[in-house]
């Protein structure tokens, strides 16, 4: 197990430009072993793009991305379509990109609750089953870094809680770093060490607030879920307008929002100036 604190992957000022538009820009992040980082943000905010920079699938047009040598990656993409012409059983799918030991494969399938599906055709799985198979496949590689792009999509609420519990368990067992993408802007996995809110750039980041002690959330989520879920309180000093422009705390409006445009400081936020400073 890796327990040193050298980052597995780090982005510094990374940005991707397509047809003159910046999909994301100025992203700084690093993931160390055993750390869970959750990326949140609205649709089209560059969450998947950021994950792809971290994975080395996209070369940043600006800034740098560095991965540790010999890094073993497990990746659960947002969408995996299996063509109907492809006969593919779950067992074969588990060995798609490597030759994991049969013990690891078995353990991963047990942990995700898909052990009985080994001979099933991947195409015939339900959305929730397929998500768990994807997770089992990534997990069986015993990765140093696990990247999960919306792993709970198509999974119902109790399944979501179970998957979050499992992801926390994987981190504890493998000691790997986890980058997780979630579409939920406010409710994140409680085991998350750090939340990064993206919208073309890093809007804010911080730790989620556990809600297990709150009676209100207990009523809303149910007692089991409150231990797994946490609420993230955003600390934005600017507002994204519908046309893509940005209004800053001082009332000025700019076309974009960059760390260097002088209206705000992304690196550190001032809790005195913002409301709801009970984050962390």
């Amino acid at each position, binding site marked *: 197990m890796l327990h040193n604190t050298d980052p597995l992957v780090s982005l510094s000022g990374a940005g991707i430009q397509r047809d003159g538009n910046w999909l994301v820009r100025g992203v700084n992040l690093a993931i160390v072993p055993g750390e869970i980082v959750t990326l949140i943000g609205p649709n089209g905010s560059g969450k998947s793009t950021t994950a*792809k920079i971290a*994975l*080395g*699938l996209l070369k940043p047009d600006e800034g740098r991305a560095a991965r540790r040598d010999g890094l*073993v*990656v*497990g*990746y659960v*993409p947002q969408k*995996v379509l*299996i*063509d109907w*012409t*492809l*006969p*593919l*059983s779950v067992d*074969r*799918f588990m060995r*798609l*990109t*490597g030759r994991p030991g049969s013990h690891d494969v078995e353990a991963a399938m047990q942990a995700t609750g898909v052990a009985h599906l080994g*001979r099933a*055709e991947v195409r015939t799985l339900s959305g929730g089953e397929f998500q768990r198979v994807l997770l089992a496949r990534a997990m069986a*590689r015993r990765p140093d870094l696990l*990247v999960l792009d919306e792993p709970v999509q198509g999974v119902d609420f109790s399944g979501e809680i179970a998957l979050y519990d499992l992801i926390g368990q994987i981190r504890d067992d493998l000691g790997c770093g986890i980058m997780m993408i979630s579409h939920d802007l406010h409710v994140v996995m409680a085991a998350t060490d750090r939340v990064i809110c993206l919208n073309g750039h890093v809007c804010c980041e911080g730790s989620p607030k556990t809600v297990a002690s709150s009676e209100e959330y207990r009523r809303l989520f149910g007692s089991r879920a409150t231990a797994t879920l946490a609420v993230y309180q955003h600390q934005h000093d600017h507002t994204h307008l519908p046309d893509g422009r940005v209004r800053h705390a001082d009332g000025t409006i700019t076309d974009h929002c960059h760390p260097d445009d002088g209206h705000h400081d992304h690196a550190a936020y001032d809790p005195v100036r913002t409301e709801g400073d009970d984050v962390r």
Partner: protein
Amino acid sequence: MFDDFFTRALVAGIGVALVAGPLGCFIVWRRLAYFGDTLSHAALLGVAMAFLLEVDITLSVFVVSALVSVALLLLQQRASLSSDALLGLLAHSALALGLVVLAFMTWIRMDLMGFLFGDILAVSHRDLAVIWGGGTIVIVVLAMVWQPLFAATVNPDMAEAEGMNPDRANFVFMLLMATVIAISMKIVGVLLITAMLIIPVATARTFASGPEQMAGLAALIGVLSVVSGLFASLEWDTPSGPTIVVAAMALFILSLTPIASLVTRRRGEPATLGEGRTLQ
């Protein structure tokens, strides 16, 4: 034993079918049927270039097919046309160019029909050596790139993120395609090569429960098509290339009938080679 022209035809046809099956699987899985067509149309330009430059026909067809593949890759990255429009453009431009170049060389008396529809009964000892030599190379190389190529077929991002090199696998695959077209042109002709790549694979899909098994089944079904097609063409005095394709089509239709369900009823068990045989 290869002195008899019919024996040579059988051995040549079987060699082509054994290579076309596994490679054809990727054509079908990746929805590249039209790409196969484009390369085979371009083969006629290869024939014309061979006469013009007085080089070996097989070599010339291979080079032209490979160049067309590269041209397609480059055009896809730059042009604003869709892939199918680009393929149509390349296929028919190459075919027309080939025919025009041939027409200019008035001193050459050649059997155009032989190139369009194949001339399997005129297979020489040298052709046999080219088919089995080239075919062996294709199968060995395909086996070497099988895992990354297959992983990239299922999901390129996942394959690349987890340390494979889909671009290299794709490039090797294109070269293999060009090789198969070059060595099989004599057997079924440029207009029918795609049929040998696709029809046995379509038949194999009904019975296969895994990718590797589908590749093997496709090869066997291709062999069956060649053998039955050749005997039929001998019996009824029909052109051999088209008769082989008709035989492949007949097997495909059989696979859709209730006869095939005798084989597929045992679902869940991996289909064995024996099940392929019950197809008759």
